[in-house]
């Protein structure tokens, strides 16, 4: 458990021998000290002192978050006292904050606060003019709009600096793309790995845990590494995945991407969903920089995603070939019609044609139905067998009587008379045998039908088609939008 402090300074020495920029460190130390005191004053309700502290911190290091915190202190003072001047100062610092960080993620929220406070100032001024002269102004409660903004709280801050500055900063994995370059400041929630890389310097990796109301400063002193090369990959499609040397290990980064690389021959693949693949064969010398630009062309491919209850025990075939030994199964397929078949032991197979659209994901949620029992077929077969046996017995009896009569008629001792009841009996046996055979045949055909008929509802699949969610990720700074980092 970390002790509660206003400033936490964490220095990481990444190089074996690295020079320290004493001047910058002093400024940052001063900013941290002022930030810590300002946080204490804010919590004690000393908004003027807190604002002063954040102003001193800003004076030491110009992090836009300090401007926001100053505005927040004046916001809270104005709200507590219905003080027009405090509100005006809050508005001023909020505006400075937006000017300093025009891409701030909370820009809209801050702008709303500016609007509300501006209206509140106006309202308070009008109320002061409307009161009778000579009488003290009655205490004014914040308007409902101000109340709806809630309390304005100073924010924590993570600062990443490097020596030298201008290094690329990654969060957790280079595949996620860079979040900016040093010096970088912003908010980070939870524990993350911060990767700092600069051409000609060794890469630095550090773990950072963002905590509320704290200023966390990560300074990496990067060791020089002149023997490495540098590769810089960009593409016309932002967020294209980059593979280096071995595709089987997966993508190493997303464009735009740059990193140190060992001198020598390398192969780089750049591709994106719905686009073709560009392959670069490069030979990098120590200290050399290779700028690679992948011009990806859209390819009519889409993706199929097979899901469903019990899919983990099913085999998925696409166009007759085993695509996944077990589900769920996601595959990229050329645009067009494909045959999907899902098989699972004891369940009815699901098969249907699926139209794959380019740059769209077709999700098939499969519901497999148990194969029905064949008890009725077994019963029918047994009945067919019984009828067949009965027919055989009756037929045998008929034939026996026929042969006996034929023999006695031929022998004539005793002569058989025309009204011998064996004629009638034999005829009845024969007709009954034939009828029984027919019934046996019909029953057998029925049994065969029962054996192969598809009883009960078939396995089914629900299809949902959606376009790929390709985030724009455009911008020269490439501030890490959509990377799961919140400011």
């Amino acid at each position, binding site marked *: 458990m970390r002790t509660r402090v206003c400033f936490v300074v964490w220095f990481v020495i990444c190089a074996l021998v690295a020079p320290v920029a004493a001047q910058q460190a002093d400024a940052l130390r001063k900013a941290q000290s002022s930030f810590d005191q300002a946080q204490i004053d804010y919590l004690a309700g000393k908004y003027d002192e807190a604002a002063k502290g954040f102003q001193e911190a800003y004076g030491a290091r110009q992090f836009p978050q300090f401007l926001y915190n100053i505005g927040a202190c004046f916001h809270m003072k104005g709200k507590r006292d219905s003080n027009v001047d405090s509100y005006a100062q809050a508005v001023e610092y909020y505006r400075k904050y937006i000017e300093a960080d025009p891409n701030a993620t909370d820009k809209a929220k801050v702008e709303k606060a500016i609007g509300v406070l501006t209206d509140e100032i106006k309202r308070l001024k009008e109320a002061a003019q409307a009161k009778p002269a000579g009488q003290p102004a009655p205490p004014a409660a914040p308007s409902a709009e101000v109340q709806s903004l809630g309390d304005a709280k100073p924010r924590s801050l993570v600062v990443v600096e490097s020596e030298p500055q201008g290094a690329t900063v990654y969060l957790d994995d280079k595949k996620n793309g860079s979040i900016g370059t040093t010096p970088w400041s912003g908010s980070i929630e939870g524990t993350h790995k911060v990767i700092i890389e600069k051409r000609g310097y060794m890469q630095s990796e550090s773990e950072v845990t963002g905590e509320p109301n704290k200023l966390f400063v990560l300074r990496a002193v990067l060791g020089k590494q002149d023997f490495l090369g540098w590769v810089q990959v960009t593409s016309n499609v932002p967020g294209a995945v980059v593979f280096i040397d071995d595709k089987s290990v997966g993508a190493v980064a997303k464009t735009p991407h740059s990193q140190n690389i060992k001198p020598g021959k390398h192969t780089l693949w750049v591709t994106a969903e719905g686009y073709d693949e560009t392959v670069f064969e490069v030979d990098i010398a120590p200290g050399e920089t290779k700028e690679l630009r992948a011009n990806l062309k859209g390819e009519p491919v889409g993706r199929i995603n097979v899901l469903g209850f019990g899919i983990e025990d099913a085999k998925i075939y696409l166009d007759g070939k085993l695509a996944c030994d077990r589900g769920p199964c996601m595959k990229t397929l050329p645009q067009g019609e494909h045959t999907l078949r899902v098989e699972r032991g004891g369940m009815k197979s699901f098969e249907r044609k699926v139209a794959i659209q380019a740059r769209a994901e077709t999700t098939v949620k499969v519901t497999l139905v148990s194969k029905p029992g064949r008890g009725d*077929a*077994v019963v029918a*077969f047994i009945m*067919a*067998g019984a*009828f*067949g046996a009965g*027919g*055989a017995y*009756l*037929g045998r009896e*008929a*034939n026996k*009587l*026929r042969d006996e*009569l*034929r023999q*006695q*008629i031929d022998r*004539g*001792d*005793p*002569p*058989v*008379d*025309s*009204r*011998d*009841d*064996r*004629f*009638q009996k*034999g*005829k009845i*046996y*024969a*007709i009954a*045998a*034939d009828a029984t*055979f*027919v019934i*046996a*045949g019909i*029953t*057998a*055909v029925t*049994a*065969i039908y029962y*054996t192969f008929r598809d009883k009960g509802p078939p396995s089914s699949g629900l299809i949902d088609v959606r376009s790929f969610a390709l985030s724009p990720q455009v911008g020269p700074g490439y501030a890490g939008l959509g990377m799961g980092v919140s400011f």
Partner: protein
Amino acid sequence: MRTLRLRLIALGAAAPLFAAGGCKWTDFDDLEADTWVTSVEKPDNPAASWGVAIARLTRDGSGGTLAVLGATDSLYNDLVIDSKGGTKITTELELNPQFAIGNLATEPLLLTSPASDEVALVSALEVSRSLVIRSSGGQLTGVPVIGPQQPSAATYMVSPPHAADPEARLQVLVAQNDAVFPAYFDQTKALMPPPKCTLRDEQIPPQMITIRALGAYRPPGVAGLPPPAFDDVLVLSESGKLMAYPGSVFNGCMGGMVSPKMGFAKDIGLSGVQGSSQILVFTDPTGTYALVQAHTDGIKGRLGLYRITDTGFEEVGAARDIDRLRTAALFQPSANVQQRYVLAGLPTADVRDVASGLVQVIELSTTTGVAAEPTLTLADAQPEDTQVFGRSVAALPYNNGKNIIAVAADNEIFLYFRTNLYDETREAR
């Protein structure tokens, strides 16, 4: 699971094959048409025990006709058999309403005329009176016989002329106990009062006899004289004597009684019961023969063949004991007179352990007598208990000179159009 499914499929496929190899029921129609015997069932009428007696009616022509009696609610039928074996009842006459004779006897006396297309039924009628019902051409005619109330034997015979009728005529002689009574077919020429002749045996003093069977034969001429124009009478007594009496007994006798002709009384050891013992007479180039069928009320029965000579009776061969014998008829399957058989009906004999009855076809030889073993045995192929197959038998002339065998069973007549003794007698077969 796959193996099971394959087995099930194989079984399913086999079923239609079974069906494809099914039975042809028309085979039985074909077989039925191939049978040698036609069975005719009792027509729809109240008579019971139909077929209690049968007799040949017509002697020639295309097809044949059989007279059939039903016992209870006495019924008379002409069963006409066409040349192709088809059968039809053409005459159906209830005797009781017409002749008031009540029910027939268990073994009725139904005689076949030896010289005409006629049969005669001899039945009790009322006190001291019997009735001979003649059937010819679908018509029944009753001839009263004065005297016998319970006739025990009867025979067709050519009766001698008498004072009222100078011609010898084929008529019926009826016996009861020890006496014989004539049935004058032409009542206008009957002797009045009705004659009666009591027959005595040869013993001195003559003893009473009980007549069990009657027969008639034409005696040869004596000392170069032509044979007489009428028949003499053969009698089987209850005591087992075969005797011959002069034909004049038909018209009565001097003193009311008569003894047998000299030398014509032979104890043959055959004794019969009332009604169904028979004396069957035939003649061939070697002489005249009497086949005597006798039986007791029980199991025992016997057949004996006797040549009738100028001086008496000669036994031909040994008499044959045949258990359960009840009736007999002479049968010649062809025109060959040397091939002669007797149809012996054994209506209570066992067939395959069923007391359904049978008929033995036994060869007769004028030199060796009655054969020891039957040449052919006829029985129902599906014997039933109490079927009484063979309770009456007849040799039926059929299709111009051929002969077939007719056998009566209870409510059923079997017509043997073909046997191992003779080939197919039906046309277009």
